[in-house]
């Protein structure tokens, strides 16, 4: 298996290196692998690539964590209170339908060329899948389980901590996996809109300079940030949801 994966990767690199020239595609459309590598090394030295990467990664992480916490809290509150959900659901639906990245320019107007607007876009975009999944999970709890706990004289806090919270964990993690990929999108859009830091900035800079290899490098690094975050979620999920049958976990 591992050998096959490695072989496929080598094949992919080779196709990237020699495929486009063989088909007559110029380097400014698809730069070959070695050129992208050289650009990467150059950017490390000249363009503070690591600095911009870590700024973006930090914003992704902060946006993800805040969006996750907010989504979790709102999901539980709405899940526990039918009246709160009834009153708030039209607004939440509207906000859910609104394209979240369109808020980026607004946040830049409000907070200037700082980290705040980028984090806020990520928070907004991460919030929904987490909130919806937690809300759905709390709603889906068998009322007889709640009655059983109450018959055992459980108080409100015990109901939350021993029933609602653990019951919401599997859908919560499913929401986090979706959110992990969305968080990167949110931050990049924020960086594209304004500022002079982050991979989004390097992306638009590369575009302005007609430097396709630079654009490739930033796209690859953005993808890597997403993969690391996603992988971390999956690892934590495996530890936390160890009680679930393996197949159900993979499907969730």
């Amino acid at each position: 298996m591992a050998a096959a994966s490695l072989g496929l990767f080598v094949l992919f690199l080779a196709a990237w290196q020699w495929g486009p020239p063989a088909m007559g595609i110029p380097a400014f459309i698809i730069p070959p692998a070695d050129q992208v590598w050289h650009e990467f090394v150059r950017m490390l030295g000249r363009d503070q690539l690591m600095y911009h990467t870590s700024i973006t990664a930090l914003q992704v992480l902060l946006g993800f964590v805040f969006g996750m916490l907010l989504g979790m809290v709102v999901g539980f509150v709405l899940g526990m209170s039918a009246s709160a959900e009834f009153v708030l659901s039209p607004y939440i639906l509207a906000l859910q339908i609104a394209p979240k990245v369109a808020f980026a320019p607004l946040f830049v107007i409000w907070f200037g060329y700082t980290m705040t607007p980028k984090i806020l876009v990520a928070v907004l975009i991460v919030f929904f899948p987490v909130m919806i999944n937690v809300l759905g999970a709390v709603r889906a709890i068998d009322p007889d389980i709640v009655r059983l706990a109450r018959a055992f004289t459980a108080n409100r806090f015990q109901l939350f901590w021993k029933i609602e919270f653990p019951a919401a964990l599997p859908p919560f993690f499913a929401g986090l996996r979706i959110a992990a990929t969305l968080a990167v999108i949110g931050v990049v859009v924020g960086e594209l809109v304004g500022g002079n830091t982050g991979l989004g900035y390097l992306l638009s800079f590369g575009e302005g300079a007609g430097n396709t290899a630079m654009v490739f490098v930033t796209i690859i690094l953005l993808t890597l940030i997403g993969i690391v975050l996603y992988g971390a979620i999956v690892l934590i999920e495996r530890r936390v949801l160890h009680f679930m049958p393996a197949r159900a976990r993979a499907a969730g």
Partner: protein
Amino acid sequence: MNALSADVTARTRLEFRDVTKRFASKRGSGITAVQGLNISIRDGEVVSIIGPSGCGKSTLLNMASGLDPASEGDVFVDGVRVERPNAHVAFMLQKDLLLPWRTIRHNVEFGLEILGRPARERRGIAMDLLAKCRLRGFEDHYPHQLSGGMRQRAALARTLAVDPSVLLMDEPFSALDAQTKMVLQQDLGRTLAETGKTALFVTHDLVEAIALSHRVLVMSQRPGTIIEEIVVDIPDISNPMARRTHPHVGPYVARLMELLHIDEADA
């Protein structure tokens, strides 16, 4: 009502006094689920309730558990009026309601945890009951790794763990296949006899009611009332398997069928 007050020497564990339960309905008048119930269950007695579906059997158990208040009348457990859920009653349903994220042992400890018992004590009680319920070796399994019958035995252990005065059981075995059901009836009969627990047991299964109980109460269509009480005169309450085959069972079943109009029902 004669036999209910006959034996005044044993302590009354569970008592319904003139209990009526009404539910609000869309058409305003309300549904009377059960009416004028008078039931008295003595210490160590196992009493079954049988009746057409929708006659208010579950409603009756819910009032005893303190989850739903009676509209009229009072329910007493150990002489104390039931006003809210309390540690003196525990219930068990057709669904095992085991929490999938807890091991079997931690599921059994659930009620004790809510009552705030220390971890060592919980563990001791759970291990002891799991052995009694023939689940030794499965303490660290998760519910999805067990068969339906084993899960229901774990649910029984969880119910017994809080050491309730009265066990309320709402068709606990009706989702099981016939053989598993008989094995669990045997487990329940033995465990109840060993622990001397008082139980109120709802079932659809006439033979199950007879095999497990000292008395069977028959309820009418809604609004449910007790229309007959049958004292099961078969020895050895701890051995339902043997009781099933006792010659008295046939006549009891015939009597119950007659009361429930099973012959006329359009099945």
